[in-house]
């Protein structure tokens, strides 16, 4: 009797370990996550406007059809990135995702507080390497630190009614994400 209970107990404890490790390892093995779905469409460090959500073939599940969407699949290994997006008529937001599609930062047009949302994206190391004399706390320079070297920027512009969708799409089309020219290293 005790022997069977022991077997059951050991089995349950090992089962809990199997469960937790599969949950934790699953994101590393996923081949159909949002980043993988966007890889064939979106070149690195370039804004790509996504097609409107249609019932037949959705690129990703649970996309809000009232929004025009554009993504930038970024890679910071060659240096920081500069992101600019004009604010659309109704509501615009920018969300930053890690390589594993975790939303680590999101900002909307009102929080950004001007006509053009301008952000600089860099890794923590690149931020630490910024020259000291530059006033990085200046209000006109919004710096976002990416926890991963690669990831996604998703720009969304709301079309409050279907007739305004072309305007919203034009707004996301005007957004840019470009790698910043490498900083001169010699001055150090």
């Amino acid at each position, binding site marked *: 009797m005790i022997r069977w209970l022991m*077997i059951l107990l050991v089995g349950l404890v090992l089962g809990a370990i199997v469960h937790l490790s599969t949950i934790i390892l699953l994101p590393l093995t996923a081949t159909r996550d949002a980043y993988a779905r966007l890889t064939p469409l979106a070149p690195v460090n370039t804004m790509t406007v996504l097609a409107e959500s249609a019932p037949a073939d*959705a690129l990703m599940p649970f996309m809000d059809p009232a929004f025009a969407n554009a993504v930038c699949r970024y890679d910071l290994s060659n240096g920081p990135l500069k992101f600019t997006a004009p604010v659309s008529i109704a509501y615009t937001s920018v969300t930053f995702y890690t390589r594993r599609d975790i939303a680590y*930062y999101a900002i909307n047009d009102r929080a950004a507080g001007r006509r053009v949302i301008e952000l600089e994206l860099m890794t923590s190391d690149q931020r630490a390497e910024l020259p000291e004399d530059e006033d990085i706390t200046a209000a006109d320079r919004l710096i976002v630190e990416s926890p991963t070297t690669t990831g*996604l920027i998703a720009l969304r512009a709301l079309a409050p009614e279907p007739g305004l969708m072309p305007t919203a799409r034009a707004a996301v089309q005007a957004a840019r994400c470009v790698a910043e020219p490498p900083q001169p290293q010699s001055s150090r």
Partner: protein
Amino acid sequence: MRLLTGSLLAFLIATLVGLGATYLALTRGGAFGALTIGSWTAFPKTGTIDADPYARAAIARTGRLVTGVGDGVSFTAMRDDKGKPLDGRCDVTVSGITPQARFWTLTLYSTAGNLVANSLNRPGFTSQEIVRRADGTFEIAVTPRAHAGNWLPTGGIERYVLVLRLYDTPVGVSTKAGREVPMPAITTGDCR
């Protein structure tokens, strides 16, 4: 020999329990920090860097891009206020008011998260499109057949989910369910 059969049995139990629990967690969905108001549930913490391992696994498996908390909060309803699963062959009414937000959208999806084709080509409503009563409340008819007022066609599918997204809203990770966050009621009427 007894040790061998014993450990084999323990490993068998471990595999079944472990993978079974993982399968259930991923298909039933779920993460920590659920915010449930009426029939609506949101996981605000899933839209932050602090998303828990269950949320991360679900994000990777479904391939969705969640709403970040600086952007908004996304509430999902799979059942009406009485606990009946939402049925596209029934007349369902979504009525009341929403929490404070600059904009909101209400969208109808299949349970897999795809839009549902319908004759009006209308996947949902935004807060600006909705026709309201004089007191500011609204009523949306989620029905298979044409309906006066705010009609959201179901396309006659058996099961669907409603997603109410609040944009630029104070509702977030620290919100507790209560009187200050009113969500619309969902009631099922006649079924055909």
